[in-house]
């Protein structure tokens, strides 16, 4: 049983099955090695745990509610619960990770924080904790995304962060990540890199998953109170890099009674060539220091993804998810741009909650499956939709007619 229980945990050398590892140039070795050897010890320090828990409670606003969505429940013929990560300070789950990592950086004596961001949610969450801790903050963001996500750029600037446009490649999230890694190579001594998802070289996938695991921990406690059982039948979360899903799945990974479902962004469809469904169309490969399922050409060049949601617009996926997919422990559904939009408008009208486009991908799983009346379904509502209002307003007319 013990060996079985380790099935979904990271190995000592950073692998989940055949995925993960630390495929990094020597220039990053010292920094990554330092994190590898110290992260577990630091995370288990009482002083760290207290500081982390206190900030999550008093600054972030945790625990976030677990809300039984009665109108959705009635429509889908099951008990649907929403884990309200959208109610965190800064509007998404991303801050669970940045609070933890900024404390880790302080512990390591780092003076400067760098981060990458796509939609800007992780950038805002990083800029926020840097302001709180009075640390210098530089956020790399694709030049294309800077234009697409102007409100979040403004928030980061107001919080005192420097936003640097990534002008190489396709000028989106993957290129912002390249630029952040290059910055880290050029500042090996004083800088900590706060990766925003369960991607990158070991130990980042495990580190970020542990810092997001508070989501599933709370789900268990809250479900126990609300239904009498800590175990849901289903947990559903959207997956780009996969940090909110990793956090929502974490405490259920070894509980086979709980069916885990990830929602990948299919974009315009998995066969359209404009997709971000890395698990379905990807092949095993290395991106940003990590072996995972990767969208790439036959020649091994990384392909540009497409999704209506900038936060799911990543050609790879966290190695934990590649492993959960390969072993069949979790199911992954591909959700199109259109299905995500439908789900977002449905939630707004039926429950009075405007979800982030990313989170709408998780909600879009509801109409795709058959449920039993007694099924308890938890959908992780990873973020709020204010940042997506432009996209929603462009699509409003078609929903007004209907």
């Amino acid at each position, binding site marked *: 049983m013990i060996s079985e229980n380790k099935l979904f945990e990271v190995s000592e050398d950073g692998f989940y099955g055949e995925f993960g590892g*630390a495929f990094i*140039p020597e*220039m990053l070795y010292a920094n990554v090695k330092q994190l590898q050897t110290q992260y577990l010890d630091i995370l288990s320090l009482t002083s760290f745990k207290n500081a982390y828990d206190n900030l999550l409670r008093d600054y972030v606003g945790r625990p976030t509610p677990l809300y039984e969505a009665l109108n959705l429940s009635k429509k889908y013929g099951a008990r649907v619960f929403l884990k309200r990560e959208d109610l965190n300070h800064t509007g998404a789950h991303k801050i669970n990770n940045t609070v933890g990592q900024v404390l880790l950086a302080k512990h390591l004596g780092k003076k400067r924080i760098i981060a990458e961001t796509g939609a800007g949610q992780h950038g805002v969450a990083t800029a926020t904790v840097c302001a709180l801790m009075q640390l210098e903050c530089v956020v790399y963001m694709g030049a294309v995304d800077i234009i697409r996500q102007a409100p979040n750029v403004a928030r980061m600037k107001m919080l005192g962060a420097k936003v640097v446009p990534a002008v*190489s*490649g396709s000028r989106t999230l993957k290129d912002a990540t*390249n630029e952040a890694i290059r910055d880290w*190579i050029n500042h090996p001594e004083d800088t900590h890199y706060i990766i925003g998802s369960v991607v990158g070289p070991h130990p980042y996938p495990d580190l970020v998953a542990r810092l997001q695991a508070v989501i599933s921990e709370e789900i268990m406690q809250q479900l126990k109170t609300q239904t009498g059982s800590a175990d849901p039948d289903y947990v559903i979360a959207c997956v780009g890099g996969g940090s909110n899903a990793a956090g929502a799945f974490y405490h259920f990974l070894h509980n086979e009674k709980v069916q885990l479902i990830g929602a990948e962004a299919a974009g315009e469809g998995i066969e359209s060539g404009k997709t971000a469904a890395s698990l379905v169309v990807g092949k095993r490969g*290395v991106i940003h220091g990590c072996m995972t399922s990767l969208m790439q050409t036959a*020649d091994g*060049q990384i392909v540009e993804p497409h999704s209506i949601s900038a936060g799911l617009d990543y050609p790879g996926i966290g190695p934990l998810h590649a492993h959960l997919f390969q072993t069949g422990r979790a199911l992954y559904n591909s959700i199109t741009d259109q299905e995500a939009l439908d789900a977002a408008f449905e939630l707004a009208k039926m429950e009075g909650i405007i979800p982030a486009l990313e989170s709408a991908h998780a909600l879009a799983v509801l109409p795709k499956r058959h449920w039993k009346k007694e099924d308890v379904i938890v959908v992780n509502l990873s973020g709020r939709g204010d940042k997506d209002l432009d996209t929603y307003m462009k699509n409003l007319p078609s929903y007004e007619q209907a």
Partner: protein
Amino acid sequence: MNRLEAHFTNKPKRNLAIYFSAGYPSIESIEPIILTLEQNGADIIEIGMAFSDPLADGPVIQNSGTLALANGITTVKIFNELSTIRQKTDLPLVLMGYLNPVLQFGFEEFLKQASLTGIDGLILPDLPLEIFERDYKTLYEFYNIFPIFLITPQTPDDRIHHIDKLSKGFIYAVSSSSTTGSSEGFSLSHIRYFERLQSLNLSNPLMIGFGISNQKTLETVFDNASGAIIGSAFIKNLQPSAKDYGITQFMNQLLNEQ
């Protein structure tokens, strides 16, 4: 005998390795660039295999790689070009690139093609040492491709010794913690680092790269190692429209300027 081994035996000091991205400024330029470099005193040629997401490269090399990819360069085309060029030169040829394209080609198939093409060494900065040792070391040996690894000022002495044991041909010492092409001149801390490396009595020759752009920095490196690797400065000075791509002038300035 591997040409790298033969070369360093004959010429242990003052070696100049030049790096460029295959396919920039054009695929047809690969052959004239290599042959002109040989005529002008280059000792080793490093052929860069462009990758869409080159983590360790600075802007100059990155841009040349992006343009090479836009020109249609592929792993297969690089091997095709180099097998023709190999008939015309005996210079040691080293391939440098990232792991993912090699994995997609098939690692063993890649080493086999490299061997058939007459490649002498391979640098894959994102191939971890442990994985090299576990999965690929015997294949490199079988195909007589020399594995070349990087070290930096942050690499501890015991790790440098370990890398020395796994390396063949030479060790690529990165002069400072940086991506390629991002520092200007050498400081005292660079010199201390070079001296520390010399004091380790490594079994492989040391080639120093990153931050070498003129005769002054080149001479400093020649004084402290078996040779120098120049990439960004060379690519920056490539003149796509000149008959010899501006290489003769660049090499003359580098080697003869007083």
